[in-house]
């Protein structure tokens, strides 16, 4: 190889730069510092918001200019900018080359099982103990083997010229943990790239009863789904006496060429629907009333006859077996009462739906009553009970629609990283050598040991082993 050196000097230089941990520090720092800017400047936001923010730092006069500069440099959408991607790329290249550069050396260590130590090496090891025990070296080493075994070290024996040496190691492969961690970072980045290239992120507001075969990446950019999705129902429930949503749920149906392939699957915020690589997340909801919205009541007459009623605004329905008829003549999605007792709608969302129902008998108006879906005490009327179940078709479900074929790869990377970190931090390569040689009145014992991790607790372990050997 050395003859190629001259020709390859450029590659060599690049290799040397990219195999240094110093570059990693520089790239770490650049990524971190620019990211900090990215957390201060609001990303993908209206320009006015950031100009207002900048005014706090550089003053009103200079803020628009500062904004223009930052905008040109890509800081207003920096995590997608070409230069930020380049830094991530340099980071990845650094990681690959750094690991490749050191791998051969580590690989040699990992491939090579432990060997006995030459006697003169014992005294040069960082952890060493020396003492004398009773008995012949052979017998003593047999006993010592059991001690090592009891401490998790299965030892081999080597005899030469009357001396016995036990040697054993644990966790040799844990030295590769670091490389597993580094590899996992690359796997995750690969997964992210796959998602960016082959995936999309869109949204869809689908009113109850509607069908769509597209989602929207932006107002003007549509993405065909390749199948149809229908919202059968949307429902939001609230914590008692409050407008804090407790859960919101949609029932969705997937259709292929008009045929229902997934029927009325319920999704909520933490449980999405997956179909053909596309995932639908419950992300929001809203109010979009129409003339065709249907009031769903459960009507019980005073005699106990029960009937389900579905009517549109203004349509008449009867209270079974009573001669009384009724119709909805007013509606509020969120009814409230002000101090003077006047009713008003406090938010254009269906947070507290209320229907004003007019009751008639023999063509004569009898009375009117506000019936609130969330207040059972308003359901009771003079001629029975009108339970307001739902106004169907007046809300849309806000779906996040995503396709990301890289997610599996990202998760695989996460799993690999977890295993690698476990090996790196909770396992270590530990080695012990014990040598027994002839000595007047017994056997002379040399203990030597090394560990690449957690040296202090390993030394405690060696102390314990030493004590047991002396016992």
């Amino acid at each position, binding site marked *: 190889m050395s003859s190629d050196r001259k020709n390859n000097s450029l590659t060599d230089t690049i290799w040397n730069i990219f195999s240094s*941990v110093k570059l*990693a*520090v520089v790239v*770490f720092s650049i*990524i*971190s510092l620019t*990211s*900090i800017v*990215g*957390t201060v400047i609001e*990303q993908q936001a209206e320009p006015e918001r950031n100009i207002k923010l900048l005014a706090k730092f550089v003053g009103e006069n200079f803020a628009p200019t500062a904004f223009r500069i930052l905008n040109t440099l890509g800081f207003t959408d920096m*995590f997608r900018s070409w230069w930020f991607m380049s830094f991530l790329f340099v980071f990845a290249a650094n990681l690959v080359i750094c690991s490749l550069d050191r791998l051969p050396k580590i690989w040699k260590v990992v491939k090579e099982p432990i060997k006995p130590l030459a006697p003169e090496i014992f005294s040069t090891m960082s952890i060493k103990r020396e003492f004398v025990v009773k008995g012949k070296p052979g017998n003593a080493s047999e006993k010592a083997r059991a001690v090592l075994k009891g401490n998790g070290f299965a030892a081999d024996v080597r005899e030469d010229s009357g001396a016995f040496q036990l040697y054993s190691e644990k966790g040799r492969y844990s030295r590769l943990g670091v490389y597993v961690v580094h590899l996992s970072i690359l796997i995750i980045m690969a997964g*992210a790239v796959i998602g960016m290239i082959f995936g999309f*992120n869109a949204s869809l507001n689908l009113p109850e009863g509607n069908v769509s075969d597209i989602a929207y990446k932006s107002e003007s950019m549509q993405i065909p789904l390749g199948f149809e999705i229908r919202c059968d129902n949307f429902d939001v429930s609230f*914590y*008692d006496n*409050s407008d*804090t*949503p*407790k*859960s*919101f749920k949609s029932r969705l149906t997937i259709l292929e060429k008009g045929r229902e392939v997934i029927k009325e699957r319920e999704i*909520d*915020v*933490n*449980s*999405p629907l997956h179909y053909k690589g596309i*995932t639908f*997340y*419950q*992300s929001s909801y809203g109010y979009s009333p129409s003339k065709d919205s249907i009031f769903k009541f459960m009507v019980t007459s005073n005699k106990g006859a029960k009937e389900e009623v579905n009517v549109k605004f203004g349509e008449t329905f009867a209270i079974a077996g009573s001669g009384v008829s009724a119709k909805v003549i007013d509606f509020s999605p969120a009814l409230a009462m002000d101090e003077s007792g006047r009713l008003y709608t406090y938010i254009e969302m269906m947070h507290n739906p209320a229907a004003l129902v007019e009751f008639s008998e023999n063509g004569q108006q009898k009375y009117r009553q506000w019936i609130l879906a969330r207040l059972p005490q308003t359901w009771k009327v003079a001629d029975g009970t009108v339970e307001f179940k739902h106004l169907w078709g007046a809300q849309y479900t806000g779906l*996040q*629609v*995503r396709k990301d074929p890289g*997610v599996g790869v*990202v*998760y695989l990377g*996460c799993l690999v*990283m*977890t295993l690698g*970190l*476990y090996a*790196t*931090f*909770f396992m270590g390569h530990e080695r012990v050598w014990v040598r027994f040689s002839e000595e007047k009145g017994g056997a002379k014992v040399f203990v030597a040991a090394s560990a690449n991790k*957690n*040296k*202090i607790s390993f030394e405690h372990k060696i102390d314990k082993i030493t004590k047991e050997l002396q016992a």
Partner: protein
Amino acid sequence: MDSSQFFGISGIAYILAMVAYIAYLVFRNSAVGIIATTITAVGFVSHTMAFFLRWKEFYEIGQMGILRAIPLTNLYESLIFFVWCLILGYLIIEWKYRNRSFGAFITPIAGMALAFIDISGMDKNIHPLIPALQSNWLLAHVTMSFTSYAAFAISFATAMMYLVATTDDKKSAGYVFWTVALGIFVSVLLAMGIDFLVFRVAVSSPESFLKSYLFKATYRNSSGAIVLGSYLAAAALIFAIWKFGHVLKNIITSFSLSPDVLDDLTYKSVAVGFPIFTLGGLIFGAIWADQAWGRYWSWDPKETWSLITWFVYAFISMRDF
């Protein structure tokens, strides 16, 4: 008694313990040390009771079942949990190493977190969970994140002690670094203490607590003179610590703490904290975000800052090479 009273007791206990540990460090009187440990332990018991009481209170108003009522759902509850992990970790270390001198370095971190809760006007009320927060991934994410932050806080304290014990050349980078860092830490803590005395004690109307008083008595005061004075005082404090820092070295080394032990503890705390942070903080957080919003990573400020934190600890883990 309700949970907030027990939290109150534990908060007072930790602040007193901080004072006692510092006194112990200075006077080396073992009775003071025993008192410090006792106060900490009492605070910890009260803290634990408060945690379970709040869980019960949350369960009663939460309408979501017992698992969804674990009080770990907002910044206030998470910080309280962080302090709990920190104190637990500290008590284990004190017991395992039979050495109380760590206390003077770790309890101030707890003190700072508690003071921050009190003067930043953080919302302490129990709120029912919005749908996005109803996830077991979130639960694992928050628990593990704050456990790892406690481990990192311990490594900060022991690394600081290591620097104190190993540097004495006033011009060396290590010495300047630790004296300035400790100086900033102490001046921030003192400023928070002053905020607490001026606003929390002097202002009595409960509504006014909902506003943030952080540094309003000092660095962010409306009077320019007080601001200037505060910065000068902080600078003077940092200078004094730089000037007399070697005294601290003598104190620490007199507690028969070898730098090796401190370094080992620092490494161990990071070695425990980093994998937990990676798995719980980043990976579980990403899985949760993926399920709730359909994006495992969206570069929002919280995520970005965790990534920066992770980079820092990744680099620290690799420092030996």
